[in-house]
């Protein structure tokens, strides 16, 4: 039995993953994925939820990585904060930072898609179809997409067993076709996500932040071998 009251604040793209792994009594707040594109607005949005949280909550689990410093400065008044030690969601979805590093080494120009991204988020494909084409017309929309994706060579679906994988596959295949990328499927894992919502939270993989202390980017800076060449 869990003795301490906990609450999860997470990005909406993780909804399927957390719904598949979180204990039923865990309170949850999902925030829109759109914040990914405006990391400057993220700390405020997360802070707002934190400020309204039941004062009896002792631990807040953050379903975010460093996210382009989108969590930096977030501070909890009375609850402890626990979050995965990852820079972005890919490591979390692949199951570990080591898997992420291996994938980056294998193919750095990879655009990842999960069922959650396809269902709740925006991708360059959905932006192209729903925003760029209507606003800019085909020629300019193509130009924008080409500029955004010119350093990508493949699109990869992460299959970790949660969410609608066939919809994700269809999205990724269309993505690959429209933008001329190769298509791949990589094996993901729900293990890291499961540990975030169930514990134990070991220091290697989780950052524990005491009440009153703002989240700092420093503990993340030395996480990856690729940071240190």
């Amino acid at each position, binding site marked *: 039995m869990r003795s301490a009251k906990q609450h999860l604040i997470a990005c909406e793209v993780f909804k399927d993953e957390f719904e598949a792994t979180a204990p039923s009594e865990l309170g949850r707040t999902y925030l829109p994925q759109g914040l990914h*594109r*405006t*990391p*400057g*607005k993220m700390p405020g949005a997360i802070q707002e939820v934190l400020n309204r949280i039941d004062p009896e909550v002792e631990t807040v689990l953050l379903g975010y990585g*460093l996210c*382009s*410093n989108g969590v930096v400065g977030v501070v909890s008044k009375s609850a402890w904060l626990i979050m995965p030690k990852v*820079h972005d969601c890919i490591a979390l979805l692949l199951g570990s930072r080591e898997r992420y590093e291996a994938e*980056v080494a294998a193919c*750095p*120009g990879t655009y990842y898609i999960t069922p959650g991204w396809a269902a709740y988020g925006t991708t360059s494909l959905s*932006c192209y179809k729903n*925003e*760029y084409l209507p*606003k*800019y017309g085909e020629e*300019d929309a193509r*130009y*924008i997409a080409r*500029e*955004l994706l010119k*350093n*990508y060579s493949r699109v990869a679906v992460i299959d970790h067993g949660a969410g609608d994988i066939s919809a994700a596959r269809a999205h990724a295949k269309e993505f690959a076709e429209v933008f001329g990328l190769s298509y791949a499927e990589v094996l993901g894992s729900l293990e890291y996500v499961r540990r975030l919502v169930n514990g134990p939270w070991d220091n290697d993989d989780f950052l524990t932040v005491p009440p009153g202390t703002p989240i700092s*980017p420093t503990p*993340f*800076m*030395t*996480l*990856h071998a*690729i*940071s*240190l*060449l």
Partner: protein
Amino acid sequence: MDLTALKEAVINGDLKGCTVLTEVAIKAGYAPHKILTEALVPGMDVVGEKFRCNEVYVPEVLVAARAMKKSLAMLKPLLTETGAKPVGIAVAGTVKGDLHDIGKNLVCMMWEGAGFEVVDLGTDVSPEKFVQGVKDSRAQIVGISTLLTTTMLNMREVIQALERAQLRHTVKVMVGGAPVTQTFANEIGADGFGESAATAVEKAKALLGIA
């Protein structure tokens, strides 16, 4: 005509408008330098500032940059003809491990617009390549860009490589990119930090003592 329409065309990312209006401005007898500094650069400054404030997003910046680039290409031969010497030499690149280049390209273009000769080293640039780039071009400014927090520390590697090559004192190091802050720039020993493409221009000029 005045140059306001051209500035607006840059802001709106209007490629055709920029092409036509640049030609009109040249035919109307505006000095190429004036077209550059009073229409193109201020137009792009507006876009950069709106981007910084989340009023516009990457697509708007991309089309605006493309429009300005087109005008710039039309002005370039004329600027060379008038014998305008570059105000300085700058090299720029995205750090090792990072393939993102929209911000870096924008800074390169704005530096060019401000009269710098710019050598673009591209993306995923190793410290050694930065060193070679500085050597080959005799640059006074080196701009290091990153979008990813995973590769931020590689900026320090570049600075250390410049030190090892005994080039550090010959060049001012500027860093920029979404996760970079002034504090971080200080920590790794950079000379300057550009919060936006426009500030990158001001900072580069200030570092070289150009008004």
